[in-house]
């Protein structure tokens, strides 16, 4: 049976918004020793189903139990280590590979890389493997082995193309370290054109511009970098939450918020919509409000926002959704409909002065003096 699919997006280099991703091999490894459980076993299949349902920690626990019972089963060990990595547990993954390091070299290298143990990771990061080669480039950079980095970079560029954003960024930093700031500038610019959230390229461009006499442009770039850092961190954090529980509506909503803050509106919409679709009763109102806000403010689609709020109201009646719908309508120049929503809400909260004021505002808008 094929291993779990999905990209392992590692820590990435120099704060790139598009971290180095590594696609795990699809083919099953060598057959298991006689008597060991196979990946096609009922337990493995059940774990896989659990994983696919979004209960990833539970799935991992099932497979870890399986591994404890069949420690010689390479397929199971590989699956466990892979899932541990996908759930951001590199220490556990490293320990899992301890028993059979050679056949699990790729996962071991990845775990050591994720742990920042770059020197130890290098022997396990196969330069001929596309994903591992990118991690290897990162490790070489951290270790200051610039000549090896330059050599491998040339090879990987020939494989992935010289317009690969991460490679451009790496090449730019290499030029910077060699004092070639003028040469670094266009490399960073090209990297940013492909990945505007590449923090390393943004920072490198700012520094290189300053050093080549373009002080104001450089400082502007450095200021942008400083603004981006916490936003990209928030995105990274939110993504990890979704990696752990991809069906968890609040995590998806948080990811959407982080994307929205970075201007990644389409991705934000997609994740907010997923959150809306998956939200349970306790989660629905907050998730609905966020999706509606995005639709109104970022997509400029108040009708969509209204539809979302109404759909949310249909699933989970809540005065907050009514009030927001009224606000959207009022801003859209539809005070009569807004008033209707506010009055319905006021009926549920007769003591709410803010709602009373909203009603008055809607009436005033309906009958301007």
């Amino acid at each position, binding site marked *: 049976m094929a291993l779990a699919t999905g990209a392992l997006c590692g820590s990435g280099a120099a704060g790139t918004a598009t971290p180095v991703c590594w696609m795990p091999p699809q083919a099953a490894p060598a057959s298991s020793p006689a008597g060991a459980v196979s990946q096609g076993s009922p337990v493995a299949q059940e774990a896989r189903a659990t994983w696919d349902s979004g209960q990833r920690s539970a799935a991992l626990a099932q497979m870890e139990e399986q591994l404890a019972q069949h420690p010689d089963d390479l397929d199971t060990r590989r699956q466990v280590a892979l899932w541990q990595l996908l759930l951001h547990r590199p220490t556990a993954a490293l320990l899992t590979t301890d028993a059979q390091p050679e056949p699990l070299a790729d996962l071991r290298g990845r775990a050591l890389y994720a742990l*920042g*143990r770059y020197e130890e990771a290098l022997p396990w990061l196969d330069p001929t493997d596309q994903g591992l080669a990118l991690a290897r480039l990162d490790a070489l950079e951290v270790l200051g082995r610039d000549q090896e980095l330059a050599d491998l970079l040339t090879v990987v560029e020939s494989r992935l193309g010289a317009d690969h954003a991460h490679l451009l960024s790496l090449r730019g930093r290499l030029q910077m*370290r060699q004092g070639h700031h003028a040469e670094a500038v266009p490399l960073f610019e090209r990297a940013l054109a492909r990945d505007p959230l590449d923090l390393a390229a943004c920072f490198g461009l700012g520094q290189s511009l300053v050093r080549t006499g373009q002080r104001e442009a450089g400082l502007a770039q450095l200021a942008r970098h400083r603004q981006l850092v916490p936003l990209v961190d928030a995105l990274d954090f939110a993504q990890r939450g979704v990696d752990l529980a991809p069906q968890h509506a609040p995590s998806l909503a948080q990811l959407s918020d982080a994307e929205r803050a970075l201007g990644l509106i389409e991705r934000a919409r997609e994740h907010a919509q997923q959150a809306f679709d998956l939200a349970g009763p306790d989660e629905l109102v907050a998730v609905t409000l966020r999706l509606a806000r995005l639709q109104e403010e970022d997509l400029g689609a108040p009708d969509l926002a209204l539809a979302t709020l109404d759909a949310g109201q249909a699933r989970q009646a809540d005065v907050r959704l009514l009030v927001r719908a009224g606000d959207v309508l009022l801003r859209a120049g539809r005070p009569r409909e807004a008033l209707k929503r506010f009055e319905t809400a006021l009926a549920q909260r007769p003591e709410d002065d803010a709602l009373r004021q909203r009603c008055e505002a809607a009436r005033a808008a309906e009958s301007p003096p």
Partner: protein
Amino acid sequence: MRRLPQALHVAPPRRAPRAAASARCAALVVLALAAAVACGPEAGDPAAGGPAAGAGPSAPTEAAGLPDVCAAAGIHFRHTHGGSGRKFLFETMGSGVAATDFDGDSRPDLLFLQSGTLPADEFPAEDRQRAQHATGTTAQLYLNEGGLHFRDVTSGSGLEEAYYGMGLAVGDIDADGDRDVYVASYGRDRLYVNDGAAHFEERARLAGIVDDSWTVGGAFVDVDLDGDLDLYSVSYLDMPIASHRFCGPNPDVRTYCHVDQWKGLDDRLWINDGEGRFSDGSLAAGLVGQAGKGLSVVAGDYDDDGDSDLFVANDSEPNALLRNEGGGRFTDVARTSGTDLSGEGRSQACMGSDFGDLDADGDLDIFVTNFENETNTLYRNDGGGYFTDVSMSSGVAAPSLPMLAFGAASLDVENDGDLDLYVANGHIMDNITAFQPASLFAQPDQLMLNDGRGRFRLADPQLGPSLSTPRVGRGLALADLDADGDLDLVVTNSADAPWVMRNDLGVGHRIVLRLGGPEGRADAEGARVSLLAGGRRIMREVRSGGSYLSHSDTALVIGLGEATSIEQLEIRWPGAGTTSLGPLPADILLDVSFGGASVRQEALPPPGRRP
């Protein structure tokens, strides 16, 4: 920056490949040292059982290394932070040490600051803003009696006052020829004025230094070149006791809160009126509103324009590089210079810092110590006001990743003519293993040896107990405690005894310079010495500030390697021209008064020998 997992980092096991590699490197270092002894042109005849006396580099009398002589030297200080589980952040920060002469006998003494013992009720009144009521223990002053023997003279020194001490700065604020002490604390600052015999009187308020916020250290430096010492004091967090709250990975595990929980505080610049009274020059200096969460400051003339600039290491905030514009005014050029963030564009948890010409190209580079999972950072001065983060290529990065580093000092430990790096390590969380099983609370220190071109390798942990025995290192100060012409090291350890390390590695030739300050001031902070010896140019500055919470002796110990003479030596005095000397023999101590009016020379013992 590689977004290293914050909660999952694993320190390499003792026998991990990296440790093994380090050991191999270190073994080579020892071999190299041995080779220098055995094969150097000045080596004595091995058949005679040892080198000829006075003939140059010679074998140390014991196995070369950094032995701990703390107890043997009569030092019984033990740090206490008073923590009892409530995890006040300041518990884990301190405290500092000064290594310099306080009683005028030219022998560096030791002043250990104490954090304090919190009362049993642990701040019951939440409205108490500061730990003014710390009780139980005080700073301790040890006078150097020669021969690496120290005497505790705390009682009656005027220093036996209880407060929650953090760091200190030392300088002759009233130009009476002795060294006074500024103490930063969690609470009000103190200024201990020395009577010349190591008796002190606390006069902070009388001198105009009024600061009740959480300060951590400072540097005495003549920022306006008017001949007296001004004080840059570093402030950390606006953290009243009432703001204390629970932090932890889960309700069962309490840890120290991250500094993001609090706002930073503005540093202060205190301008000296020439008679030891200070006024707050922070506004004119451009420091107001910076609120940088500073943990150390070091002074140095990075742009070689004749005045002292300041580098401030800020915890999880961009660093400041304050270019001295004259007249007590500064411009923060950290962003344009490339020293505000790491080379990867990230704020780091910068703790200790030091200036030093680490690549021997004649200008000052900057070294900063950082948190576990962050590299210690080396900013190479490229000239023109620019720096490049060369932590990776210089070799300082990789060994530092598992360590949480505080004290930082550049020193030529072998007297071979290049600056090495010593780093005091120790985690801040005593229960770190509860949620990061592979992390270590107590950690060994690290010595990084320079190959002469600014590339570093980890020294053999077997060179000294501090490099192999885990403790919780904090402050770090340097001084030639045994007058043998090399720098010894003192490291404070949280809730533990300090390391007092006799340097037996200093086998190269050297010159020691004590530079007097203007108008009778004890030291010439900011003076720059450039010399040519054996075809090699070496530049050093009289240090002010630097490391972490600590103060190192101002005497310059300049290693010369195999050079037995100095062709030229130039001293650039702060605001007062230069003095040229030479040719000079190696292995001498020069006492030079300000401006070079008088020069006194005495011989040092042969390299590797104690007097």
